[in-house]
């Protein structure tokens, strides 16, 4: 080892996991279930003239989520709220406009945990029990976990009263909430009504949908051996960048991986907003059934999580270094699927 190091500077690590299997086993749904707070979904459909209505609609209908400004976190441990929403259906929530590397963040996971990622100063003045963050050796950040569904977590119990009392002191945050009711006959907007009755500023948000068609595109064939190039191509296509016209270029040396096929129309669909894993699940089901109806070389689905959510994959702690991305790409063809999982590195900072 050289000291001081002068030449070999390693880029920050990131983890990539590639998994393949057969669609019939339904294993591809497992990955989706592991990431709960999803921000961006995009789909690439090669060789498609008309996108079936049901694909576009899947993440548009009944996918409203709500933005509530300036909520004190003590509202979220209110027992009426827990009984009405967290206990029933699937409730997820996260704070926005807070950065996980420098501010205090909050999220609620589908299994009923309220998680706070706090800076040292906030943690020490808050006075609730937590654990030091895995990523900071210097104990600059703490994670506080509150189980909202615990049987002992109700008014009159010491722990409940104290938690509620302490959360009152915490700064007010802007939250996104997404609630899936337990029965179809309950309107998902009742959670919005609950907060509206408490005189909070509630805003309904619709996912932002975009669709684009590109003509005469070279599309690489999908095989397992060139998976990295294939995923890179998906990125190049999705970002509408130069796909390599051949010949030497000063700007870029990128070329579409061989072998490729040229298709007249390639569709690109993108949704942005706040999606639960159940909603993504539905989309994947629709895509699989679409594949069965029509002959397609492949279909790809990309899902990106939020950068500033307290937990990422498998409810493990999340952090932000060069980026805070957790995401996955699923490529399907008529029989097989491939999952390309991209995770933040688990290395802690020095």
């Amino acid at each position, binding site marked *: 080892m050289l000291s001081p190091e*002068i030449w070999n500077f390693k880029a920050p690590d990131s983890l990539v996991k590639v998994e393949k299997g057969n669609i019939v086993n339904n294993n591809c749904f497992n990955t989706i279930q592991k990431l709960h707070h999803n921000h961006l979904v995009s789909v690439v459909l090669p060789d498609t003239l008309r996108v079936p209505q049901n694909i576009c609609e899947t993440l548009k209908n009944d996918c409203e989520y709500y933005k509530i400004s300036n909520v004190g976190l003590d509202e979220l441990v209110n027992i009426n709220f827990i009984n009405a929403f967290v206990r029933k259906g699937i409730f997820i929530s996260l704070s926005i406009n807070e950065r996980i590397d420098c501010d205090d963040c909050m999220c609620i996971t589908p299994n009923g945990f309220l998680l706070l990622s706090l800076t040292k100063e906030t943690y020490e003045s808050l006075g609730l029990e937590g654990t030091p963050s895995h990523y900071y050796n210097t104990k600059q950040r703490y994670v506080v976990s509150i189980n909202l569904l615990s049987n002992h977590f109700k008014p009159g119990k010491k722990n409940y009263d104290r938690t509620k009392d302490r959360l009152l002191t915490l700064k007010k945050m802007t939250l996104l909430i997404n609630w899936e009711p337990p029965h179809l006959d309950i309107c998902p907007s009742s959670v919005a009504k609950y907060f509206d009755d408490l005189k909070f500023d509630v805003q309904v948000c619709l996912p932002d949908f975009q669709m684009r068609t590109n003509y005469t595109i070279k599309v690489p064939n999908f095989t397992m051996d060139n998976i990295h190039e294939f995923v890179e191509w998906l990125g190049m296509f999705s970002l509408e960048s130069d796909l390599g016209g051949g010949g030497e270029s000063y700007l870029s040396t990128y070329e579409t991986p061989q072998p490729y096929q040229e298709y007249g129309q390639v569709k690109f669909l993108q949704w942005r907003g706040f999606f639960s894993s159940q909603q993504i699940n539905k989309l994947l089901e629709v895509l699989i059934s679409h594949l069965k109806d029509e002959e397609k070389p492949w279909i790809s689905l990309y899902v990106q999580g939020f950068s500033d959510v307290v937990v990422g994959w498998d409810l493990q702690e999340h952090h932000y270094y060069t980026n805070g991305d957790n995401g996955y790409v699923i490529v399907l063809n008529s029989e097989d699927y491939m999952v390309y999982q991209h995770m933040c590195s688990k290395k802690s900072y020095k």
Partner: protein
Amino acid sequence: MVIEINPQQQRKDNSLTIPSPTFYQALLKKIQELHGDFGAAAIREGFAAKYFNERTRIAIVRARHGPHKLITSVLPFVKEVDKKKVSLVTLYTGATMRQCFKFILNHQQKKINEICSTLQSEEEKVAIKEALLKFNSTQTLS
């Protein structure tokens, strides 16, 4: 970390006078050119062009372990020192002064043998040996 360089003169006269600071500047300039601001800053700590023997044309360069790689990488590109055209050859890279002096001693001994084979009289051989091993070649041989 000590590195030895052998500047080989283009013209075939034996001695070469280059002041240490000029040599130092020449190296630094080249590193600035090839490794940029970063390289120049990286080597400057503990950097020294220490010693120059005119007769055998040997210099010692000291650098920290790490940045020495930058120096060894630019040495072949140094073409001009003190407005004289030179080419540099790394003879030895060692981690202690002692190892380097050991090497120089062996090296000088070889040089002496080379020179001696061209000389006739015993006295001249002794004089050369004295001159080279004492590192004050200019006095004795001029």
